[in-house]
Every structure is written in C-alpha cells, then in structure tokens.
C-alpha cells in the first residue's frame, strides 16, 4: 500500500524530533562569541567600515523627491535652450575671449583671434594612405555671377 499525501506529511513531522544534543545552542553561542572576537582582531578598521558601507548601499533607495528634482532641472535646461536665453555656443565664445588663433589638432577646428571658429575638414590617416575618389569640380553645381550687375535700365548707347 502506498503512502498517501497525509501520511507523508505526518512522516515529515517526525523530523521535528531530530534534535541536537542538550546544551548545544548554549555551547554554540559561546563559539559564536569566540569567532566574533577573533574576527574583530583579524579585520582592520578599514575593512569593517567598507563592509558597513556596502551593506548600507545594499539597502539604499532613491528618494521620491530626487525624481522631482531631476525633472525640474531638465525643465529649466530645456526652457533656457528652447528660448535661446542660453546656448552652449555662446558660452564657448565667451570663454574663448582674449585667445589668439588656436588650432585643435585632428578636429579641423580653428579659433581665430577675433573669437570666430573656422571649420576645415581634417585629413584622416586613412585618407592619406588610401586616397578616395572625390567628386570633380565639373560635377559640382556652379553659380556664375556676371561682372556687371543685371540692370533693367536701357543701355546708355541707345
């Protein structure tokens, strides 16, 4: 006859009677104290501090107000940029006043003494070693300006 589920559960309850010898928990508490003392002597103060710090971080939760603060910051920056009150370009120009012409290597940017930034296309190492085909001048659109401006006034010779 097979055991039914109730009998299995009754059997399992018998395991509650498996007990360590009397006085075991008192002796183990003493052993715990002994190990604690030994550990304190072994570990440096820095290790203890680091462990406490890491356990504190384990329970760290971002406060709800931080989300509101981050959103507020975003809104302020978006407003400043959107309305043109402040732009990163303006900030850069202001910070570069008084400087002579400077070339920023590899980037192709050139800062003139007037504070203007000139952009020239930098030549990369790849382009030096493996010249690529560029569109010729003939294929580029041309805008030819007459030497004399167009006028609707009749020529003087008439």
């Amino acid at each position, binding site marked *: *006859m*097979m*055991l*039914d*589920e109730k*009998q*299995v*559960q*009754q*059997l*399992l*309850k*018998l*395991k*509650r*009677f*498996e*007990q*360590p*010898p009397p006085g075991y*928990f008192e002796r*183990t*508490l003493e*052993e*715990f104290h002994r*190990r*604690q003392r030994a*550990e304190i002597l072994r570990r440096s103060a820095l290790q203890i501090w680091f*462990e*406490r710090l890491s*356990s*504190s971080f*384990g*329970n760290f939760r971002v406060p709800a107000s931080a989300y509101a603060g981050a959103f507020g910051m975003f809104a302020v920056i978006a407003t400043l940029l959107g309305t043109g009150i402040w732009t990163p370009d303006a900030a850069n120009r202001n910070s570069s006043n008084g400087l002579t012409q400077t070339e920023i290597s590899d980037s192709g940017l050139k800062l003139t003494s007037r504070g203007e930034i000139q952009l020239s296309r930098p030549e990369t190492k790849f382009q030096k070693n493996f010249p690529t085909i560029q569109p010729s001048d003939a294929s580029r659109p041309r805008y030819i300006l007459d030497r004399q401006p167009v006028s609707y006034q009749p020529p003087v010779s008439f």
Partner: protein
Amino acid sequence: MEDPNLLDDEALVRRTQNGDTQAFDVLWQKYSSRIYSLIYNMTSNHEDANDLLLEVFAKAYRSISGFRGRSSFYTWIHAIAVNMTINFVKKRGRRFQMSLDDLDSSVHNDKEFIELTASNTPTREVDLAELQQRLNEAMMKLSVEHRTVVTMFDIQGMPHAEIARILGVPEATVRSRLFYAHRQLQNYLEEFRKK
C-alpha cells in the same frame, strides 16, 4: 536599563545597531534553534548545519546596521539562512554523508507517530532509526528548492505566505513546489517499501 529578554525584535535590532551585543544574544536565543532546524533539514548533516548556523548569525551581525525593518527580523534572518544554505548545498554537490541528530525520545508519545505506526502502512514494518534514515534519504533526493519548501512547511510549520516572503517567490510557486515534492516523496518512500 530595560532587560533585553523583555524586548521585542524591533527594539533588540535597534539596540544591536547601537552596539549592544547582549541584545543580539537574545536574538540568537530566540531564533538559533529554528535556523538550525532549517539548515539541518536542508543539509541532513549536523556538522554542516553547525558551521552554517554560525556563519548565518555572523553575517546577520555584520549586516544588521543596514537592516531597515522593511520586513521582520524573523523573515530577514530566515532569508539569509535559506540563501546561504542553498549556495552551500549546490557547491557541495552529491558527495556528502548524512550525519543525523538523534530522535528525541518524546517521539514515542507523539500522537501522529502513534497513529502512523498503528496503521497498516510501510512505517509499521520498520524500526524508528531505519524510518529516520529512509525519510532523510528521500528528502535528499529532492532538489534543494523543493527540500526548502518541504522543510519550511511540513517540518517547521510555516504558512505559505511566510515562505513566499522569505523565498521572494509568489505563493502559487510555493504551493506547486510543495505539491510536486510530496508526490516525489510518495514515490521515493514507495521504492523503499519494495526493497
């Protein structure tokens, strides 16, 4: 100063956080036997249970400064014990020897034991030591996850909700693991009967 033995867990934890080691001793006295039983029934080895019990309380003591009371101390220390024991059992693998504690003599007066041995079941045919051996062997055939829920529910008598909180799984998972584990135990114990 108030006697630590009269304080509740919350106050004992607060005192321990403030450096009162006696308060932690009271927590040890309250929970060490339950934690030992949990580990012992998951490992079926007294020496391993002894070492893990000390490690669990050492870890709890080191981490108690970060305990914020979002769960009870009881749930918290049980979760530490379960995680450490599962890791230990997985590392240990299959190579281990059972080292069982003696059965308390009061088992003979237990109503359920009397009922079980009086009925016409396989348990009637074996003596108590053999029954203990068979039962533990059957338990060790379960996966560690199934053994954990059987230990907590059938041996320690914890409700499903508490087990779910400690393991961090839904209650339905606890119930299904229990159902499956009971089925497996029925089969394993049936095999013993045939031997």
